[in-house]
């Protein structure tokens, strides 16, 4: 009998009990991790002192000593002397108060700013709706097409009584959102096809996909953007001119596609061969097998690296500044070129950083929720 101890005496059933209070709880944790000897106690105290000091000086700079508005002359020139007087002691958020519309919307006609503002809200609404699993139906694709069309109408205008705004005057946050949204919306399906193609048995398809991934991956995004903006038009016939934003957009899609394809391929590679065989043995066709068995599992496996790449590309859209497209970062840099505002870069960059962070952090939080939900089946 297995419940007999070696000596032959029956084992007494052990009643489960709580761990001793000195072993669990925050006090025990602090003692074990922060103050377990004089050396670690010293480091802990030093770190606490440093943290408090940095926090206090940041709060006093950013809030207590900060200037939020400055007088502006009727000619539109801001008087920033007060700000310059407290340089290094207090922040001059007046630059944001004054320039936030330029930073957000760039050189878009000032009195029409409500249009890009609605566009930004539409994008955010689209993200929120698409993130909810109960809306994951075929109709969602129609919603996307409708919203993106509406966004195009709002940005360009020229119909419905809206004045026409050429693409050269677009700027700021809408550009960043357009590049990121279209970029990932097209790059992701492209990446799936390329990843599948790389594992294809047909040599021509496989070679094409390998060539695409290796060529694009081997070149920096900046040079790709540069080629799209400067070299590509040279090859086009006289008179044919493709929109600069569109060219940058295509470059971003191709670049992101190559990276995402490798992430997706990692997921395909990680699936056990038995899954493919079981699907084959049931008589599922290639596309049924791929769509119902392989991709749902492979993509779940690679949610963390996928979102990693998504976040990276959201920020990489700022590289379009080198070909003179006015995205959020470029608009921010341009806002402080004006002599009155020169030297207030820190405040502007912090603001831009917060905007980028909000979008990236939302993606990151959403993905961890998705991961937990999707991998429910792996829990016992």
């Amino acid at each position, binding site marked *: 009998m297995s419940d007999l101890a070696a000596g032959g005496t029956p084992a007494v059933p052990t009643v489960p009990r709580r761990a001793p209070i000195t072993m669990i709880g925050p006090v025990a944790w602090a003692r074990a991790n922060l103050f377990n000897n004089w050396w670690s106690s010293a480091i802990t105290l030093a770190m606490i002192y440093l943290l408090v000091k940095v926090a206090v000086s940041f709060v006093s700079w950013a809030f207590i000593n900060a200037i939020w508005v400055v007088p502006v002359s009727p000619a539109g020139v801001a008087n920033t002397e007060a700000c310059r007087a407290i340089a290094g002691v207090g922040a001059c958020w007046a630059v944001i108060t004054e320039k936030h519309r330029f930073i957000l919307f760039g050189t878009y006609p000032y009195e029409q700013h409500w249009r890009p503002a609605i566009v930004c809200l539409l994008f955010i609404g689209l993200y929120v709706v698409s993130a909810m699993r109960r809306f994951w139906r075929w109709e969602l694709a129609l919603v996307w097409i409708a919203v993106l069309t509406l966004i195009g109408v709002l940005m360009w205008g020229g119909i419905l009584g809206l004045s026409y705004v050429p693409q050269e005057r677009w700027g700021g946050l809408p550009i960043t959102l357009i590049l990121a949204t279209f970029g990932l919306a097209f790059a992701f399906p492209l990446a799936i096809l390329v990843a599948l193609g790389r594992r294809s048995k047909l040599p021509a398809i496989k070679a094409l996909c390998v060539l695409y991934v290796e060529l694009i991956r081997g070149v920096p995004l900046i040079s790709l953007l540069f080629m799209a903006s400067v070299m590509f038009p040279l090859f086009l016939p006289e008179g044919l001119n493709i929109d600069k934003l569109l060219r940058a957009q295509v470059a971003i899609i191709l670049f992101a596609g190559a990276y995402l394809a490798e992430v997706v391929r990692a997921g395909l590679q990680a699936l*056990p061969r*038995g*899954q493919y*065989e*079981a*699907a*084959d*043995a*049931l*008589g*599922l*066709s290639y596309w*049924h097998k791929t769509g*119902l*068995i392989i991709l*749902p*599992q492979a993509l*779940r496996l690679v949610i963390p690296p996928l979102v990693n790449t998504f976040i990276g590309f959201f920020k990489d859209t700022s590289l379009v500044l080198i070909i003179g497209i006015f995205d959020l970062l470029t608009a921010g840099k341009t806002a402080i070129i004006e002599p009155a505002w020169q030297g207030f870069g820190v405040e502007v960059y912090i603001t831009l950083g917060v905007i980028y962070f909000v979008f990236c952090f939302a993606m990151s939080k959403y993905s961890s929720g998705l991961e937990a939900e*999707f991998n*429910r*089946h*792996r*829990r*016992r």
Partner: protein
Amino acid sequence: MSAAETVASSVRKGVPAITLAGVNKWFGALHVLRDVNLEVAMGERVVVCGPSGSGKSTLIRCINRLEEHQEGQIIVDGKELSNDIRSLDAIRREVGMVFQSFNLFPHLTILENCTLAPIWVRKMPKKEAEALAMEYLERVRIPEQAGKYPGQLSGGQQQRVAIARALCMKPKIMLFDEPTSALDPEMIKEVLDTMVMLAETGMTMICVTHEMGFARTVADRVVFMDRGEIVEQGVPEELFANPRTDRLKTFLSQILRGH
């Protein structure tokens, strides 16, 4: 050959379900199937045994073309296996397979595992497919697990689901590739019982297994393979009692010692 005659008489009809003629297969330089000839009649239950590496798994995996053979002819349910995808899909619809490692789809519930192929391959309406799946889950005695995911089930339960999943396609032929080899000893019986029950319904079965007890109860014929070729075959009692070749003698003594 008296053995062959007994085999023929014990099978209901003489219509061949599967014919392998002169089948050869290589993995690189390794000759894994050597001139294999085998005919399985409709309703016949064949057990394939042999030492590991003898090519028995490869043999049945060739029947639904999970492996490709390089020479010879394989005819399943009157259709010859070739590179033509359409005829291959048609054959796979009629041939169910149960794997050593179950290979259930972990992201789908038990019920979804069973209804997937009927819905997408047989184009069966969802309601009908679910009713059918529940019927088979009942038959393998785990209808109460329908809403769970494979990871929540024991190995024996998973293997029974895998059998139900294959049966939901209403196949004419069932292939079993060492269905009990990955199971804990206490779960082997529940899976073997399910297979015996299936055999009683008159299903054509080819089963690679080391379970000699199962072979004795169920098989019309036992095929012994070694080093890629069929060495001996016959009715189980006769084959086990009077092995004619040294290779079968050695194999039998080894597995009997193991039990």
